């Protein structure tokens, strides 16, 4: 049984049944929710998720703020493309090689990438940790490089917010190696 998963499910249960507003039955609701969660994780077990994650509250808040601001910017950018007169907007599909090996980091980066400016994950190549990203409005080499830089920056923020120690070490080693290449 995975305790964090069961606790997460209990949290969802409490949100669904308005359990955080203090009432007579709140405690019973929590106990019942935890019981159901444990039962579900025992009856339908899932494989453990890789090396897991480690929450760093300050960096997580920074990440959330960054994604929120970027989401608003992205919406304005897409709005501009939608109403721009003339021929349809052109774009590029670019390859981004992530620097960490963890599945979880890959998933979070893909989800966040899809939510922020002009990027949408088309294809994932897991063994090589490559993401193929559709960048809206990237019409030249410079635009493609900007999109690639943005994706890597986002990965770094995510790893620094919720990555394990090993993920951060991977990231820093890869960044250092990349600098020597350049």
């Amino acid at each position, binding site marked *: 049984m995975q305790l964090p998963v069961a606790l997460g499910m209990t949290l969802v249960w409490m949100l*669904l049944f308005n359990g*955080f507003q203090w009432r007579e039955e709140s405690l019973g609701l929590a106990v019942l929710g935890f019981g159901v969660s444990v039962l579900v994780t025992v009856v339908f077990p899932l494989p453990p998720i890789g090396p897991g994650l480690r929450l760093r509250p300050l960096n997580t808040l920074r990440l959330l703020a960054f994604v929120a601001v970027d989401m608003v910017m992205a919406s304005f950018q897409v709005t501009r*493309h939608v109403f721009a007169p003339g021929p349809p907007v052109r774009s590029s*599909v670019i*390859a981004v090689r992530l620097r960490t090996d963890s599945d979880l980091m890959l998933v979070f980066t893909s*989800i966040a*990438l899809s939510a922020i400016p002009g990027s949408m994950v088309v294809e994932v190549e897991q063994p090589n940790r490559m993401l*193929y990203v559709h960048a809206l409005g990237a019409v030249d080499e410079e635009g493609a490089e900007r999109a690639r830089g943005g994706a890597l920056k986002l990965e770094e923020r995510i790893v620094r917010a919720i990555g394990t120690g090993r993920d951060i070490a991977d990231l820093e080693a890869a960044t250092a190696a990349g600098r020597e290449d350049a």
Partner: protein
Amino acid sequence: MSEPLVAVLDWIAVLCLLAGASLSLVAGVGLVRFPDLLSRMHTAAKPQVLGLLLVLVGIGLRIAPQETGVFNTGTLILVGLFQVLTVPVAGHIAARVAYRTGRIRDDLLVTDELAERIAERRGGGPPAGAGDRRV
């Protein structure tokens, strides 16, 4: 809660609802105006999600002062959370299938590193043309 505070919250809620509704409208217009599926996924994944989140915030501010018994803030948080988590996945799957079945327009892509990669893996040769993208 005091009367003026409720009034202020109501106004913020109204603004959030209006902004959210306009963003959803933008997403709808984008679906019509954009030429190909990959571009359309952008409107579905961004202004639409932000619009929905703003509408949820608006509803949350509106119902916070009174008890409705149907919705509560927890439900709204859950709706927002699962939208943000699942919409990109749906968009990704749609984009992937479109790409793999060749339903994309090459003339709208300036560079396409995925096509190059697929061609490379097949054993050299120039990138495959549209309609022949299956790996």
